[in-house]
């Protein structure tokens, strides 16, 4: 796995990709550092990080679009997949390779709080907490990008779809707020979700009976849920969308609160997408 990490990391710096990613992120950190801290003479550094989370939307696709798509297009995945190394290690290696570029960039930005500390008092625990959150947030987005890259063999498609997906994640709180919260729409939403799961299963396994079974059992479960605990469906849409709200979990970090639950949330969010990436590669071999 170390070999894959090393290879991915070095590949970023053999092309422009790694430099563009770093330059873009560093430019905005620098810009907001000057605006938030130097010009307004404030020692509060976490604002810089939370201001530039939006830059991730632009730079993460650059970092992840190549990861799997290019291997598939150049057929170099034949080397990886026929080597005595498990799919999980390949995916994890690629992920950590990309994450290490992010890590390196963040290490460079440490110069700013250090500069601040020479001129005022910096709340170090708060800054460290902010950095942990910022890093985990970026790492979670990289996992999304890695998964999307594994679904195609075209880098441009991977980049555009990743950008769209990240944008959707960004706006998910706003979207959730404007959706209906009443019981009926919650019920309908649950029904659509169950139907979608049954459909996905049918597309994957081509088994009509089992898919229909999933649909029927799911709908019966929904009915039972309604009879037993109807309040479950109140505001269900918002609750489900909230599972994907990466940004709302970031608020604690930006305020300097180091809470364990958002850390676990980000890690498991990444884990789910890494798992999906492994499944996607596995599926490609079977189809």
């Amino acid at each position, binding site marked *: 796995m170390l*070999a894959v990490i090393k290879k991915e990391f070095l590949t970023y710096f*053999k*092309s422009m990709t790694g430099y563009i990613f770093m330059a873009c992120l560093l430019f905005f950190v620098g810009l907001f550092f000057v605006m938030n801290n130097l010009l307004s003479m404030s020692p509060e550094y976490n604002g810089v990080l939370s201001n530039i989370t939006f830059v991730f939307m632009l730079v993460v696709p650059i970092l992840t679009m190549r990861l799997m798509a290019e291997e598939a297009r150049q*057929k170099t995945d034949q080397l*990886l997949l026929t080597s005595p*190394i498990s799919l999980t290690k390949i995916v994890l290696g690629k992920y950590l390779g990309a994450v290490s570029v992010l890590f390196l960039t963040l290490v460079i930005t440490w110069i700013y709080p250090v500069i601040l500390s020479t001129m005022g008092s910096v709340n170090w625990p708060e800054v460290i907490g902010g950095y942990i959150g910022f890093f985990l947030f970026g790492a979670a987005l990289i996992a999304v990008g890695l998964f999307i890259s594994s679904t195609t063999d075209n880098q441009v498609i991977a980049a555009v779809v990743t950008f769209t997906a990240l944008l959707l994640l960004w706006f998910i709180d706003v979207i959730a707020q404007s959706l209906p919260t009443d019981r009926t729409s919650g019920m309908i939403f649950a029904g659509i979700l169950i139907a979608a799961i049954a459909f996905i299963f049918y597309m994957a396994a081509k088994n009509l009976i089992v898919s229909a079974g999933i649909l029927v059992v799911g709908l019966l479960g929904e009915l039972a849920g309604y009879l037993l605990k109807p309040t479950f469906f109140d505001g269900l849409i918002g609750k489900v969308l909230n599972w994907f709200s990466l940004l709302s979990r970031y608020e604690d970090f930006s305020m300097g609160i180091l809470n364990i639950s958002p850390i676990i949330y980000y890690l498991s969010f990444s884990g789910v997408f890494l798992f999906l990436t492994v499944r996607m590669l596995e599926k490609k071999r079977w189809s």
Partner: protein
Amino acid sequence: MIQVENLTKRFGQHVAVDSINFTVDPGEILGFLGPNGAGKSTTMNILTGYISATDGKALINGIDILEQPEEAKKKIGYLPEFPPLYGDMTVTEYLDFVSDIKGIKAADKKKGMDRIMDLVKVSEVRGRLIRNLSKGYRQRVGLAQALMGNPEVLILDEPTVGLDPKQIIEMRNLIKELGKNHTIILSSHILPEVSAVCERVIIINRGRIVASDTPENLSKGLGDTSRLTLRIAAPEKQVLRVVNELQGIKSVVSQGSREPDTVDIVVEADNNVDIRRPLFHAFSRASYPILMMKSMGLTLEDIFLQVTTQENPVSDKEVQ
């Protein structure tokens, strides 16, 4: 060494490989022959664990590639149809990466790399970026990749594609050399290559094995007639008349005149009939000198065309 049982691969409705069976003994060089799209690469991709079979089993040294992929893959070196090279790496960096993902111990790495680079003759380009190398060098770097870690089994998908004639001969000699201590499966749609290198040939067409034997036996088994080419110093009409009067002639075709006052003919005899003596005596009686007589064994090309254009397998015996 390699055991394939009822291997089947379907892509949707399309059956790429249709329940094929074969075995490869240790140290054997097996040729996989077939037209483009016959299922050669698919079979190789399954054997190396790149894709999964829809049905059936593939065992490498008794290890199932589906059940214990990592164990089985350790024993295989694979050169796919398009060598899986990273253009932005140098040859050394690439082989270094390959030996790392193949889990070769750091102590053996340097030595192994030097040995293999010498063997496939890429030492002089070791510091160059792969994307700047010629097709011939890339193919050799691809082979070097397959050889890393000295696997017992080598699976080479069209290893000589894109090479110039001199490199093709070098590559063939190298494969023969490697065959001394490796089990090799090699695919090709170029027939002389297979007959030059392989001890046994499997002809595959539309996902099925249509023939399996040594190149020599294939020529023998399928050549159900013996054919002769003759050059006779006599007018065409008389020559054809003389031949047609003989017993045991299946057909005679005139090839026209290649030398002044002569005619070339191709005579095909019935099964197991040696017509060389009767032909000599007949022409001698008619006082027509025979300037040339040579037998035309079936070439691998003939066999290949014969078996790949037939609907059914040649015979059940051939398809083991």
